[in-house]
């Protein structure tokens, strides 16, 4: 990794690492009586390891000038490996939490293993660890290819990737220590948030600089989505995390917002995190890897314009549908609901665009599990966006809110859409990045596909059932005009579905581990070969005959 940096970049890396290490030491000293102290030490120790890492490669020969004629894929390779590691952790903790709902004793009486701490470990590890790393890794890859431009320098993309992982690590370890600002999907405290701002702004700058150097006159759809993802997440993150720390040596901070304003800000953030992190970013992946793998031109450029601007404009308004029938004024709820309904068409337009792109390549969907991952992802994307708009309608929400239906909906999106498109893209990109002929085992990709699909379906159907039963039990009145069931009654009725959900999650976890093994073996042992035109930046666009792309890799054939 260090060998790819120029001498100057190695020096800058050292300066950054030493500065951050000093910052960590300062936090450790100021917060010696606070949980933040442990994080100070963690930051310092990691940076010192980094310093040794840089020094050990410091005197390696500098990369040649010829590097500038090829793409820079080192951050993408590291990102893919980190992404799969986070997937293994996040899916494991997720299934643990699922079993915890079946048997509450599985916390082993330890504070760190309580539901309230493990659950954000699960969500952060899968969304930000697994999803975020995959987004960063693929975005660098896609941006360079579709712009025919190398990343602007060698250091800043690595800084973005590793800095982002430091944030994830601080987040997850913080929850176990009891550090949280109790905002869903924005749990990390002020110092981790500030660090992420630095990292994320750098990410945005790297992206803009690459874009500015592009040799393609037009910007491909995938990059619109990646850009929207980076820009909007920066905005959401900064606004929702505005807060005042108690002191430099304390992990605790107080939000700038309170009461219903706090709730609205949080769900403006929360829903747009779904929109721009879990949707826009992964649509970027879909728009590159699906046509590439299928070897088909994108179905419709015009449709992609409608989807993109529809999603970008309409999603921003939809967050208040998380707060139906609360203290939030009714007019805000109306806007959230109606914009959610209008959002359906642009969302389905994306799913349709993806599926119609496969026309002429369905035989490949049949034969190639990697492409099938992407196809199923598009189907689940359509399914969960329909469900989302439906659940945003107030009377429907009256039944579904606070029930497991919401959990089922989230996982239809997270497992069926986000994870499937990510696994599909990773299986496509791994042979390209490591210059292998193909994956170590196509059969294991097939196994992973069926485990993931079965796990998702079991999970989602279990949660639909339990959610609707819960919702109905909570609103059933007896002939005396009082509630017919206590909360505990509904909890007992949930138990069989909780078991089914945990089994579905287990299948998904096993699939993920099979994927980790397969990717590891591909990197280690698969025969070297070229499955993608070289990493050299072409002087001119690749000549491609639509429908018969010589450039598209077809490892499965």
């Amino acid at each position: 990794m260090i060998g790819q940096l120029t001498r100057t970049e190695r020096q800058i890396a050292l300066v950054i690492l030493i500065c951050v290490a000093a910052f960590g030491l300062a936090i450790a000293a100021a917060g010696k009586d606070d949980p933040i102290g442990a994080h100070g030490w963690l930051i310092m120790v990691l940076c010192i390891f980094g310093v040794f890492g840089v020094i050990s490669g410091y005197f390696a020969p500098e990369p040649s000038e010829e590097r500038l004629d090829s793409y820079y894929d080192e951050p993408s390779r590291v990102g893919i490996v980190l992404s799969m590691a986070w997937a293994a952790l996040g899916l494991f903790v997720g299934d643990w939490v699922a079993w915890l709902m079946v048997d509450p004793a599985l916390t082993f009486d330890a504070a760190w293993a309580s539901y309230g701490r493990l659950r954000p470990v699960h969500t952060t590890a899968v969304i930000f660890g697994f999803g975020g790393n995959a987004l960063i890794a693929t975005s660098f890859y896609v941006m360079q290819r579709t712009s025919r431009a190398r990343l602007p320098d060698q250091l800043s993309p690595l800084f973005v990737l590793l800095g982002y992982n430091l944030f994830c690590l601080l987040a997850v370890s913080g929850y176990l220590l009891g550090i949280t600002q109790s905002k869903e999907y924005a749990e990390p405290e002020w110092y981790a948030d500030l660090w992420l701002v630095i990292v994320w702004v750098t990410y945005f700058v790297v992206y803009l600089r690459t874009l500015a150097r592009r040799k393609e006159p037009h910007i491909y759809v995938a990059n619109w989505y990646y850009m929207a993802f980076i820009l909007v997440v920066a905005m959401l993150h900064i606004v929702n995390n505005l807060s005042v720390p108690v002191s430099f040596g304390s992990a605790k901070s107080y939000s700038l917002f309170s009461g219903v304003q706090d709730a609205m800000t949080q769900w403006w953030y929360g829903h747009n995190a779904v929109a721009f992190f879990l949707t826009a970013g992964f649509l970027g992946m879909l728009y590159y890897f699906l046509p590439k793998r299928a070897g088909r031109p994108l179905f419709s450029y015009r449709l992609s314009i409608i989807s993109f601007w529809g999603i970008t404009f309409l999603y921003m308004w939809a967050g208040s549908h998380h707060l139906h029938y609360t203290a939030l004024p009714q007019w805000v709820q109306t806007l959230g609901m109606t914009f959610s309904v209008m959002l359906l068409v642009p969302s389905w337009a994306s799913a349709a665009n993806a599926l119609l792109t496969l026309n002429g390549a369905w035989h490949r969907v049949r034969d190639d599990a990697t492409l099938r991952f992407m196809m199923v992802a598009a189907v689940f994307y359509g399914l969960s966006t329909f469900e989302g708009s439906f659940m945003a309608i107030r009377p429907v929400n009256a039944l579904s809110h606070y029930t497991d239906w919401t959990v089922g909906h989230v996982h239809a999106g997270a497992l069926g859409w986000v994870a499937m498109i990510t696994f599909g893209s990773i299986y496509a990109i791994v042979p390209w990045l490591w210059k292998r002929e193909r994956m170590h085992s196509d059969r294991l990709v097939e196994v992973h596909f069926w485990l993931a699909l079965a796990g998702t379906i079991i999970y989602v159907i279990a949660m639909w059932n339990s959610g609707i039963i819960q919702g109905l039990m909570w609103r059933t009145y007896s002939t005396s005009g009082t509630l017919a069931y206590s909360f505990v009654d509904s909890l007992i009725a949930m138990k069989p579905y909780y078991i089914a959900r945990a089994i579905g999650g287990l299948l998904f976890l096993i699939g993920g581990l099979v994927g980790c093994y397969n990717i590891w073996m591909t990197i280690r042992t698969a025969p070297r070969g070229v499955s993608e035109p070289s990493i050299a930046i072409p002087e001119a666009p690749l000549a491609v005959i639509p429908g018969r792309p010589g450039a598209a890799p077809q490892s499965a054939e």
Partner: protein
Amino acid sequence: MSVEQRDPHSGYLTTGHEWNGITELNTPVPRPVYVFLILTVVFSVVYWVLMPAWPLGSSFTKGLLGADDRAALARSIQQATATRSAWTDQIAGKSFAEIEADPRLMADVRRAGHTLFGDNCSVCHGRDARGGKGFPNLTTSSWLWGGSPEAIAETIRVGINAPHADSRVSQMPAFGRDGILKRDEMENVVAYVLSLSKPPALGDKVAAERITAGKAVFAANCVACHGAEAKGNPELGAPDLTDAHWIHGNDENSIYADVWGGLKGQMPGWEGRLTPIERKILVLYLIDLRSKRP
């Protein structure tokens, strides 16, 4: 340099751009997309006209239907309360005995009581009201603070060792930790207390000696609350030690631990949380539950 090409499969032209091998077709947007887009927009506009929707500085558009969540909620609570008053008024007005004698009212009590108990009491006392270690079984005839409907109602209202001003207050001293009794004295008194509900085997001389010694300790230290007969005192929340009901366990170790460290059970007062009618329903629910189980 853009060269449109025709896709042999779909017959459409590409846009002429190409990114690392990916091209796009210039397929027109399918008509249903426009149709449904317009439909959802029309739905939204109609909804905005009918319902509260857009902010206007310090106010907002009220909508033609005049819908108002708060008013609707108040109305539906009022309606539900009015419907329930058919029987809740009788619960409020009649005595415990009168209600118990009315099977139709008791059916209402069972339905409402099940949910009230499940949501408020079952966390400690269990869904079946049979309690658990440290939490009294409410289906027996043994009641710390009295088992009459009035006594149960008062316990629910004020709680035990609770912040409520009228809270029932009770504490058993920590005889061991505070050095009031010595170890052998405590062991003897435990033997005595145990013998009240589980007589020792005949002819066990050691046990008999310990019980005799324990009885003296009991007389000197325990009778003030538990009474000379050890039958307890509901005025003080002191349990009957001669019956088969034990909140904190009736094995030697458990009783020794209680004597050594003392006891101060707690129950919240429900006056601020449940209405008088709800509390009365709970009392009747418990009496009904108790009557079904010998």
